[in-house]
């Protein structure tokens, strides 16, 4: 891992190291290195087609890179499956919410919690009356706390298919958080949310980062929001990292301004919510 792109000296919670992905002749990611420090929000911005979602796929394990490596807390996980990475503490959300339509919001969180904390229940589930036992106190507390934090308590009993898009996104974030991840990848969590929802979610995200010390990588179109939330930001364009630095660095970067030619105003206005 080259020191130049590492924002801090500590071992990053998640790092992509010189990752290259090709789709036929098209190079979607070219030698991209990013690092996410523990306990911080790292932003990832870039115009459409810059390779943000591809990078997300590589980091979460849904896509195998043609070259390069992915490290989770210093361990090379390039060859590991998404399930495996999830169990070692990596969670993500999707641009299009991937919820389970007929499971309730609470069940989404319960399932995610158990997939991390109460594994290997195959035989118990089949042959013991496991379903009749009360859920452990830790599970109840954690799930209730998350529902509360994300203002989902009111819809906890509803199946996901009746939720509006904004709420669906928040449920996805909640499901990811319920696995108690050490790293959380969020793919445009704020798109489709109204201003109020977006601000509430942003507050909740900052809260979990501050209180639980998890690392977060945030892809978001709303550049102003990313600048205000993140402590370190990478800018991708045409599959390559064209800049990396603090919000102030990014605002001052000429290359970034060129990539975001029409969006130069956005870079100037750090107040969250203004851009919508």
């Amino acid at each position, binding site marked *: 891992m080259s020191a130049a792109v590492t924002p801090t000296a500590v071992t990053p919670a998640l790092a992509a190291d010189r990752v290259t992905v090709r789709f036929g002749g098209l190079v979607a990611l070219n030698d991209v290195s990013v690092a996410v420090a523990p306990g911080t929000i790292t932003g990832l911005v870039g115009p459409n087609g810059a390779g943000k979602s591809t990078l997300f796929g590589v980091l*979460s394990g849904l896509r195998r890179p043609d070259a390069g490596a992915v490290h989770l807390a210093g361990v090379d996980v390039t060859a590991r499956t998404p399930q495996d990475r999830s169990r070692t503490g990596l969670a*993500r959300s999707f641009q299009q919410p991937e919820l389970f339509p007929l499971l309730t919001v609470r069940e989404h969180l319960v399932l995610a919690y158990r997939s991390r904390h109460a594994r290997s229940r195959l035989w118990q*589930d089949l*042959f013991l*009356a496991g*379903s009749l036992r009360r859920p452990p106190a830790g599970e109840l507390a954690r799930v209730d706390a998350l529902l509360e934090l994300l203002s989902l308590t009111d819809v906890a009993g509803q199946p996901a298919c*009746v939720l509006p898009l904004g709420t669906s996104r928040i449920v996805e974030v909640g499901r990811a958080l319920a696995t108690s991840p050490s790293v959380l990848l969020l793919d445009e969590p704020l798109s489709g949310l109204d201003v109020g929802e977006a601000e509430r979610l942003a507050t909740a995200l900052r809260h979990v980062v501050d209180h639980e010390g998890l690392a977060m990588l945030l892809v978001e179109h709303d550049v102003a929001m990313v600048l205000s939330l993140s402590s370190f930001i990478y800018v991708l364009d045409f599959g390559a990292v064209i800049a990396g630095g603090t919000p102030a660095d990014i605002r001052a970067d000429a290359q970034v301004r060129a990539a975001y030619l029409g969006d130069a105003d956005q870079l100037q206005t750090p107040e969250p919510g203004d851009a919508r």
Partner: protein
Amino acid sequence: MLQYVIAGLVIGGIYAIAAAGLTLTYASAGILNFSFGALAYFVARFFYWLHSQHHWGLLPSAVIALFAVGPLLGVLLYLVLFRMLQLASTLIKIVATLGVSVCVPPLATLLFGNVTIVEAPGLAPEPVSVYHVLGVPVTMDQIIDYGCVLAVVIVGFVVLRYTDVGLRVRAMVDSPAMTSLSGSSPALVSIGVWAASVFLAGLAGVLSAPIIGLDPTDYTLLMASAFAAVVAARLRNVPVAVVVGLVIGIAGSLVQHYLPPSSSFTAAVIPSIPFAVTVIFLVYHLVRYGRADETDGVGGALDRAILPHGGNRRAAFPSAGGPGARPPLHWPPAVLGIAVLCVAAFVLSSFWVGLLAEGAAYAIIFLAFTLVVGEGGMIWACEATFAGVGAVAAAQFATSHGWPVLAAVVAGGIIAVPMGVIIGMLTIRLGGLYVTLVTLMFGLLMDNLVFTRTIFTQNGIGVTMPSPGFATTSRALLFLGLGIFCAVSLLIVNIRRSTTGLALSAVRFSEAGSKTIGLSVLQMKVLVAGVAAFVAAVGGAILAMSQLSALPGNFATLGGIVWLAVLVTAGIRSNMAALTAGMMFTVLPGIVLEYLPASWGQVPPVLFGLGAILVAKNPDGWMAQQADQIRWLWRRVRGTRDVTARVAAGARGPLADAGPAGARPAAESAAPPRGLSEVQDR
């Protein structure tokens, strides 16, 4: 050798025509037509009716059967059924077409009379002339067969490649949504495609008649071989399907040439060819493309977006009102149902109690489907095989080896477990439709290789299956069956309400979503498959008990598919539906037998078939529908009081929140709620 190639081309040509018809509708309509064999039989039977029974001339009979009845049947089926299936889930598509295949043969018997047909003529004038080509005798029937294959290939190629109609069909294969947006009517194109496909079915049927006679089962078996060619073509590539169909025919013929004709090994190899072809090509697809999934390469982006659940293959179930994530416990109706049966055991005559005991055994087998299809989301077509394995094994242990009966039943169940687990492991990475096809082929293979052995068939009487000492009467047997049914039901309820059950339904809904929270249900699914095999085997042994002997013929795979159809008609995710379906399956024919004239004997299978077809309209099954309506009525009866109480207490009901569901309570009084209310009321 040449004569074997020539002979192989005859049956291969029929496979090729059938495979072309099957891929055509799959590629353009997304429906693999499991009723293809039955439709082929219907047209062939109609041709026989006109030509042999009513002595019409060969040409008019052939023209009417092939060019009028076949295509019209296709159009009719499209209008009443296939049209509604396009956005349905894989399970519903399979079951609805299975319903047609259950329905059509008895309908043909009702329409054309129940006559024993020893020999059926083909399209060649009788007596059939024989020519000698390169020293090999070739009949006129065979020459017509080759001619038809050639004509189908050439006409198909020209139409698809060079005509406007062909362009529209190809556009629809690529993207139905875009086709309709660019001004072509997919409905018209679909009508044409279905007419063509059933025309091909009829052609294959009429060509097969001189070779295999006129038994509906043989037609379905013949088409099962065509399925192998369809798998090889990845369900969509018509030319590959045609070529592989021809090759399968020639391979079968060559095997007969090179292997000793009367050895049991040869007899075992020939029926294994379609299964072997299927496995070889699936392995090839897996190695070459990394996966074998029927949704690969389906449609354009727009089509994928409008497919149910974004085209996710694990979503084998409909969402709106579909079999819910976790249906509620139906304690009152379940207890009531069992109580009624217990009372009936003391009230009814031994004839009816015997039928009920048999029905309870079927209900246990049906629970295996509930487990593997309803919970596991794997549409297996070979549970009847496991039931048969349990039955014959238990009978062997109990009768030939003198084991205690219950120990023999358990042992029979244990034998089925590794089979279920192995098939589960082999098919776990396949798409839903491929799983169905592989398990279907496996079941047919077991029918041919294992269940035909004399040690099991005992020349048609089967091995005696004794009952345990405490259950020698039908009544005691009914109680035994009900007891086992209840035990298995509790197991299923337990799974449904557990983390594993939650995880299984999560994976059915969104694979990507479940991967990222670290769910891997591969192990669970394989385990569920193993448990289901055990349940099916135990049910099979109990069924053999109530029938007094283990007759392998009662556990034929095609019969098992009828079981699945009957169960889905009642409801695939409800234990009570399994019980009702089991009872219906034996009691309904009993009623017809007892109270109606003998000519009505074909009515129950027609009803079972129609029921399965109606699943297209009501994917939950009618049990769930009835339950919803009763619950709705119940809520109406006490509705007013309830709502006021809630408001007074200031309690927020599960439906009283903001969002689209907020309007629900008001809507409830207007229309019966479906599906969702079940989940919420839990």
